[in-house]
């Protein structure tokens, strides 16, 4: 730069002397000195353009200009701090929030898995005439072998799981071990972090698996402190010593992220269901593959009709990504939130556009002046471009920083149970680039349009037009008013979403679950099926367990509730005596002990409870809920009637046991009050409670109501269980209140994000309203001055300003509300549970928006009230 400066000075000096010499000569030729100087100047030509041209020869001109433009731009931006900060804030929010949320969507919905080509994995679906969507059909191991042989499939693997008891350490622990076919890891395509994965040779020719185990990263960390020496050590699983052959990387969670994978016993007579997934052979169409599989399914259905829909079915391949991530509640709320941030990005772009328009319109005069004293049009546009780009880049940089923070916050807020094990939420470069580009382009586009328009050579108009806007600038104002209306409409839609989310959430908090969740502990005790191979053993264990725990000090009552405690339960087909069969209806079945209703605080409406004696002997009795009672025609008393519940004899797994010769028919003895047996957000299904002694699955779930803090009883419970069987693990204990908390996690996430987004949207809209009104007031200062001069009161002027605000926000409000209602009808807002758009929501939105617009209008209104008519009118002259 030094060389540059010296040379510039040299050149200036040289030219000054040139003019001096010429003046001298002119004087010598007899001109008066004053005239001589001007003649010399005229002869020399345009001094500054000569300077510029000369420097251009040096070749550094672009740098000089850029530097000059940047300095000029910074000065210009600093001179209007209001404009600059609002524009920066808009860019920051637009880029930051959009990038953050789309990063979450990318991590959770688009690329959640580390598997090789996860979008080419297909699950096998079977679809009855009324089913929609198809269910994921499961197959036995023998069937899996046949599927594997189908020519349409390049590869097929099966996954299953079973409870595994880990012993040999200090405390026995129960896990779900994931069983895999030998080709599974090859199919999934993720290598081991340490050691090796399960290979086909780990399952011998006769189907016997080798005693090997591959650990999850978390299991390895927790049990071996991440020691690489764990490879080759052994674990006692279900009394068999297994050698650890490998550890998987942290981002791998096929069906589990805290236990382990074992080779599957390929026993042809084993009917345990397995989940089969396939990859298609290259060149084979999905339809062709479905046809082959359909033929096979038809054969399977002929062998075992029970596993397939009764009245015909179709086979459909389902994309694994679609069924595991792109469905479900998290997916729909993320889709909705994406829509919301899309709106937010739009709002911020509109805001930036608006600000740029306002700014360049006020600079028309400046631009015209610079053009008329000889600035090149291209040069001028380039300079304005520098300013826009500078602003956008700076805003973008802030946006990136903001996006980093917001991504982290959302990743923290997102409920872990709702996203795939392997989903990693990190800031996504592509998304960042996208929102950055959109915002920056908006800024540049709207910063430049007026510049290009203004720099057309109708300078006279622009100069005459002066500070006050008429003609073109009135048109600009109209565009900007519409932009603000759009902004308001968009933020109203966001607000509508937030209101719905908040109401949905508060509604959920007020839902009565139908049981009393206070001071109740829930704990799972899984029995090892091999140690308790008969139903008599299991039932005896349960009876003793209940006695032992109920007698603990501090325990009010204890009960077994296998399945359906507190939500879910086996959905079984049923038939009611004296009624035609209804094959597609289901009843939710829970296996309970006699104290169940008392322990959970579920009132008995009619009839009687089951006695200890009846439960112990396994009498075929049932208590039904009120919804189930309605299955009988009005006026007919269900008590004393019989109902056949198929799940009581039709068992899904060989590990579930029933007494020999047990029947599926039970007699109704009582009617209990309804509980929300499918979770707080879903309607109550017909439910039946039957004695736990009728069906014994490996796991039992206990509910223990205590006098004081339920977690304090835990140690005593553990001791009792240990006394009964020292190798018996205790599942993770949880209180009923915690379970209810889980139910509200996802709505809370929605509510938090929606409210944030709506708040940001409103803030941006307020900034938009403010900028337009305040600009309008400046432009109309003259008119307001005239009004004052003609005797208008300050109040009249305030009304004038408020009328502008009301016009803008009312139009935006109407458009926004209409769009919200339409959108709510079009998109099924399953996210918002039971709530829908109503008068209360609308009133809330109108109130908030009104408040915000008035706040945005206060400053401009005060400014308008302070207009001094003398100054305003003199300005005109």
């Amino acid at each position, binding site marked *: 730069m030094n060389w540059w400066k010296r040379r510039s000075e*040299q050149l200036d000096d040289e030219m000054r*002397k040139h003019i001096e*010499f010429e003046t001298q000569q002119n004087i010598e030729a007899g001109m008066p000195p004053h005239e001589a100087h001007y003649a010399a100047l005229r002869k*020399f030509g345009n001094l500054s353009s000569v*300077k510029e*041209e*000369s420097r*251009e*020869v040096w070749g550094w001109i*672009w740098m000089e200009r850029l530097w000059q433009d940047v300095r000029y731009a910074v000065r210009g931006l600093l001179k209007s701090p209001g404009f600059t900060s609002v524009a920066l804030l808009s860019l920051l929010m637009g880029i930051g929030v959009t990038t953050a949320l789309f990063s979450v969507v990318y991590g959770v919905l688009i690329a959640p898995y580390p598997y090789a080509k996860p979008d080419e994995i297909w699950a096998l679906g079977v679809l009855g005439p009324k089913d929609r969507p198809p269910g994921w059909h499961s197959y036995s191991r023998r069937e899996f072998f046949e599927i594997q042989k189908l020519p349409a499939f390049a590869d097929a693997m099966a996954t299953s799981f079973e409870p595994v008891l880990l012993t040999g350490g200090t405390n026995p622990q129960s896990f779900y071990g994931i069983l895999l076919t030998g080709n599974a890891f090859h199919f999934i395509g993720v290598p081991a972090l340490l050691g090796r994965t399960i290979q086909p040779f780990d399952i011998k020719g006769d189907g016997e698996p080798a005693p090997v185990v591959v650990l999850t990263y978390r299991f390895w960390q927790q049990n071996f402190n991440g020691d690489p020496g764990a490879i080759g050590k052994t674990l006692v699983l279900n009394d068999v010593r297994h050698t650890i052959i490998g550890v998987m990387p942290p981002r791998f969670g096929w069906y589990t992220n805290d236990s382990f994978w074992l080779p599957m016993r390929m026993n042809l007579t084993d009917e345990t269901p397995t989940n089969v997934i396939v990859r298609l052979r290259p060149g084979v169409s999905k339809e062709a593959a479905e046809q082959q599989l359909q033929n096979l399914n038809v054969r399977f259905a002929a062998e075992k009709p029970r596993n397939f829909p009764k009245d015909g079915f179709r086979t459909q391949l389902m994309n694994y990504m679609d069924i595991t991530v792109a469905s479900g509640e998290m997916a729909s709320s993320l889709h909705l939130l994406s829509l919301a941030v899309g709106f937010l990005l739009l709002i911020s772009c509109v805001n930036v556009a608006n600000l740029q328009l306002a700014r360049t319109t006020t600079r028309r005069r400046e631009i015209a002046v610079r053009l008329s004293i000889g600035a090149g049009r291209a040069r001028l546009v380039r300079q304005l471009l520098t300013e826009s780009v500078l602003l956008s880049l700076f805003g973008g940089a802030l946006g990136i920083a903001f996006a980093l923070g917001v991504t982290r916050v959302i990743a923290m807020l997102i409920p872990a149970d709702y996203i795939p094990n392997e989903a990693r939420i990190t800031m996504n470069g592509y998304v960042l680039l996208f929102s950055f580009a959109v915002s920056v382009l908006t800024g540049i586009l709207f910063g430049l349009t007026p510049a290009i328009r203004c720099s057309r050579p109708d300078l006279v108009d622009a100069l005459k037009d002066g500070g006050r806007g008429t003609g073109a600038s009135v048109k600009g104002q109209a565009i900007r008013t519409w932009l603000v209306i759009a902004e308001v409409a968009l933020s109203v839609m966001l607000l509508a979403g937030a209101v719905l989310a908040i109401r949905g959430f508060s509604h959920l908090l007020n839902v009565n679950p139908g049981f009393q969740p206070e001071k109740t502990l829930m704990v799972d005790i899984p029995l090892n099926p091999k140690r308790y191979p008969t139903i008599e053993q299991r039932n005896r264990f349960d009876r003793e367990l209940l006695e032992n725990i109920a007698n603990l000090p501090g325990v009010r009552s204890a009960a077994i509730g296998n399945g359906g405690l507190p939500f879910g339960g086996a959905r079984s087909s049923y038939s009611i005596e004296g009624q035609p069969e209804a094959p597609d209806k289901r009843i939710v079945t829970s296996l309970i002990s006699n104290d169940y209703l008392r322990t959970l605080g579920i009132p008995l409406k009619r009839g009687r409870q089951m006695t200890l004696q009846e439960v112990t002997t396994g009498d075929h009795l049932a208590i039904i809920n009120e919804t189930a009672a309605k299955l009988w025609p009005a006026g007919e008393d269900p008590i004393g009637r019989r109902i056949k519940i198929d799940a009581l004899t039709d068992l899904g797994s060989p590990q579930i046991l029933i007494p020999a010769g047990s029947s599926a028919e039970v007699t109704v003895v009582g009617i209990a009050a309804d509980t929300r047996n499918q979770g707080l957000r879903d309607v109550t299904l017909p439910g039946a409670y039957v004695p736990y002694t009728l069906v014994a699955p490996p796991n039992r779930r206990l509910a223990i109501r205590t006098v004081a803090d339920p977690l304090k009883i835990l140690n005593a419970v553990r001791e009792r269980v240990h006394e009964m069987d020292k190798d018996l693990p205790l599942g993770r204990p949880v209180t009923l209140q915690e379970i209810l908390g889980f139910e509200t996690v996802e709505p809370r996430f929605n509510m938090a994000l929606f409210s944030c987004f709506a708040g940001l949207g409103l803030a941006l809209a307020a900034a938009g309203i403010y900028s337009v009104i305040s600009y309008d007031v400046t432009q109309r200062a003259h008119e307001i001055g005239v009004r004052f001069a003609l005797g208008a009161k300050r109040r009249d002027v305030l009304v004038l300003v408020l009328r502008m605000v009301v016009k803008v926000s009312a139009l935006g409000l109407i458009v926004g509300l209409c769009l919200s209602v339409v959108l709510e009808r079009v998109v099924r807002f399953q996210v918002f549970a039971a709530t829908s758009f109503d008068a209360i929501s609308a009133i809330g939105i109108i109130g908030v928006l009104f408040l915000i617009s008035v706040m945005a209008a206060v400053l401009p209104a005060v400014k308008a009230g302070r207009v001094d008519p003398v100054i305003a009118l003199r300005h005109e002259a």
Partner: protein
Amino acid sequence: MTTSDQSPQLELLQGTLDLLILQTLLRGPAHGHAIAKSIESRSEEVLQVGHGSLYPALQRLLKQRLIMAGDGVSENNRKARFYRLTAAGRKKLFAETSKWQRFSEAIARVLSPLPEHGK
């Protein structure tokens, strides 16, 4: 980047201006004003746009190392920046001059009346 957007006519003028400057400096070092005066006396239109257009041309020649600049003292005893021809400038001037001469001779031959056929 700098001169590409200029019209062919201006380019021609620039070429002429460059040559005129070199020609002027052949008689000895001179400062800007003197060069301008000398050119003015010889060609009316080249400097029509103003004496100022001399300076970009001088910068161009400096950059091409056809001339050199240094401080000197003017006829009225003032310190001024003097330009003089370099060896490269001299060579360039002769080359251009002979090129122009050849060119104008060729033009002259083309335009001169044809000798009558058969005589």
